[in-house]
């Protein structure tokens, strides 16, 4: 009997010790700048987080080898959001309250970035969203900026504007149909901005079909689009699998139509899944791995990691470069600052807010202080041709 309880007791003590040690490991050493990274590391969307994490780790190792930022080493703490909003929010809270990070990179999608924005403000921790492009990520419903929320990608109004402009003027399309993920703020946002500009030019949106995240069956919507007489099908989805399935099912139903997409399509997996069905489709993107200036980086990345660099890695690096700049600026002012302190985070935020022409990975970054959006991020129009991405046109705001 005694042994039974004794055994239980040993387990309990072991468990307690384990949880205590994990708690203690959360305490910061004062000469380290901790940066959190909330990423989609597992599940169908892991292609978004995997390469980005490796890219960040490479860059951080490089900085630390050179002695860190003004003598401060950088430590990256990555948590998997599993592509779920509650997990992303929990990860953000854990990074802020438990790990006491100085800044956070991510998340990648607007649905998670919007709730995290208010938490960032409360805990006074700067968060730099990577590819969350909905306008509400950095400003609230009344148009007031979230002081601690930033992003490094373009915003949807401009993306919607650019693809509508391209569809009407360059492709000569007049009747657009939509198949939209109505559960994603990102998708609905782009649909609205597209419609606004497209109809103002004289075009017409003849069908608006919806679906919800993780749907696999689109034939009902595709049949309706075919019936509507549309000459253009716009699919503003944040994940390549939706458009891959739509294109495959449309092909099976015999629908031949011009496709137009958004930056959420960008994944090499799309080319292998539905490159044939989507041949000739156009889409917009902020940056592309096809740009010649990334050629050397891509080759080195692939050689080292055995996987391709992605635009998600580029955006994550942009965010890291911004933090490097801001931390360096803060340490210039106060060389013995404690990176775990609120004062440090507030100064970091001030530096991010006022950054101007700071060299980042993809281009120079200038933050707009009243919106926390990067200034003048271009939109690149790509075409899928023969299983490759081809650059067609660049829109400068």
């Amino acid at each position, binding site marked *: 009997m005694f042994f039974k309880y004794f055994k239980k007791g040993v387990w309990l003590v072991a468990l307690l010790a384990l949880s205590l040690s994990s708690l203690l490991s959360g305490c910061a050493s004062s000469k380290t700048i901790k940066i959190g990274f909330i990423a989609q590391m597992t599940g169908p969307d*892991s292609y978004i987080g995997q390469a980005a994490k490796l890219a960040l780790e490479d860059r951080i190792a490089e900085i630390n080898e050179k002695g860190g930022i003004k003598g401060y080493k950088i430590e990256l703490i990555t948590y998997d959001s599993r592509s779920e909003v509650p997990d992303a929010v929990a990860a953000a809270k854990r990074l802020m309250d438990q790990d006491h990070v100085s800044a956070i990179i991510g998340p990648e999608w607007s649905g998670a970035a919007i709730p995290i924005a208010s938490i960032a403000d409360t805990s006074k921790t700067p968060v730099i969203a990577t590819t969350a492009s909905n306008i509400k990520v950095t400003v609230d419903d009344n148009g007031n900026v979230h002081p601690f929320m930033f992003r490094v990608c373009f915003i949807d109004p401009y993306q919607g504007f650019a693809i509508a402009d391209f569809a009407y003027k360059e492709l000569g399309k007049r009747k657009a149909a939509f198949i939209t993920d109505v559960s994603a703020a990102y998708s609905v946002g782009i649909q609205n901005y597209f419609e606004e500009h497209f109809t103002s030019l004289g075009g017409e949106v003849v069908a608006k079909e919806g679906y919800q995240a993780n749907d696999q069956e689109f034939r009902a919507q595709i049949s309706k689009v075919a019936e509507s007489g549309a000459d253009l099908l716009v699919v503003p989805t944040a994940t390549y699998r939706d458009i891959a399935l739509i294109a495959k099912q449309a092909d099976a139903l015999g629908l031949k139509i011009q496709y137009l997409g958004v930056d959420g399509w960008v994944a090499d997996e799309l080319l292998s*899944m539905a490159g044939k069905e989507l041949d000739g489709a156009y889409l917009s993107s902020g940056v592309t791995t096809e740009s010649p200036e990334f050629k050397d980086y891509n080759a080195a990345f692939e050689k080292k990691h055995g996987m391709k660099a992605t635009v998600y890695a580029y955006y994550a690096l942009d965010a890291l470069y911004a933090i490097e700049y801001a931390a360096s600026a803060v340490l210039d002012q106060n060389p013995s600052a404690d990176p775990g302190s609120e004062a440090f985070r507030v100064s970091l935020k001030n530096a991010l807010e006022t950054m101007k022409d700071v060299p980042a990975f993809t281009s120079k970054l200038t933050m707009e202080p009243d919106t926390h959006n990067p200034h003048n991020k271009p939109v690149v129009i790509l075409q899928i041709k023969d299983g490759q991405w081809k650059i067609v046109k660049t829109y400068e705001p």
Partner: protein
Amino acid sequence: MILFIQQVVSGLSIGAVYSLLAVGYALVYSVYNFTNWAFDAFMVAGAFAGFYAIASFFIPPVPAIALALLAAVILSVGVERIAYRPLRLRNAPRLFMMISAMGANLCIINLANLFFGGQFRKFPEIASGTIFLGGVAVGKMDLFAAGFSAVALAILWFFLYRTRAGLGIRASAIDTLTASIMGINNDAVAFMVFAISGVLSGSAGVFYGIKYAVYPYLGIVTLKAMIASIIGGLGSLPGAVLGSLLLGVTETLVSGYISSVYRDLFSFSILVLILLFFPNGLLGSKDSEKL
């Protein structure tokens, strides 16, 4: 009118795959009175085994599908051995078996995610192309899947109603304890029931993989099949097929004519309504007349 027929045809093709899974649910439920929540995992096993057999080992489609079904059967029988049989032998409440099934399912799906990665894989094309019948498009693969489902269900019916082993399963479905007193080997019945479930869910997995994509979470659809088997009457095989086709067509019609946003709302509302008027489902009957 063509649009309407097209939607119904699409709905039937969705329902055909639901029916494979729903029949599996019905079979296990009829014998063991619990819902086998691990179907999801068997489906994934079938899809991945079929995918790797063709894409990595270049095995021709028919033996590859046979291998896929074998993988699902092994997993299904294995899960029965490890997660259900010990509980069954100790007369654990049925609810515990359901929880055990959920645990096994989560465990297998997460392992698949860990080992294979979550990305989407395109199943090598087996029967691509579309047949047009008076403006209505019917995918060759859909026809094949529907045909396969029909044949598989016919064989299952024959097995259950025209063979001694089938009689044993039916006897166990009515009363497992009495059946075992009469000399029916419970473990053999369990083996057969779970092997059949493995074949059904494995083939559903292969069809799903071909039609959509292969990834660890493709089994999410089993929830729909579960609803279909409840609509049809849990434990009734014809009911499971009827419920599946009904659900498939309802979903496409709702998506096509109302909005896909309300699709699940309608599916679940129909479930509630049917249960209000037919507490045992459409073709379900009292315990004594199952299967």
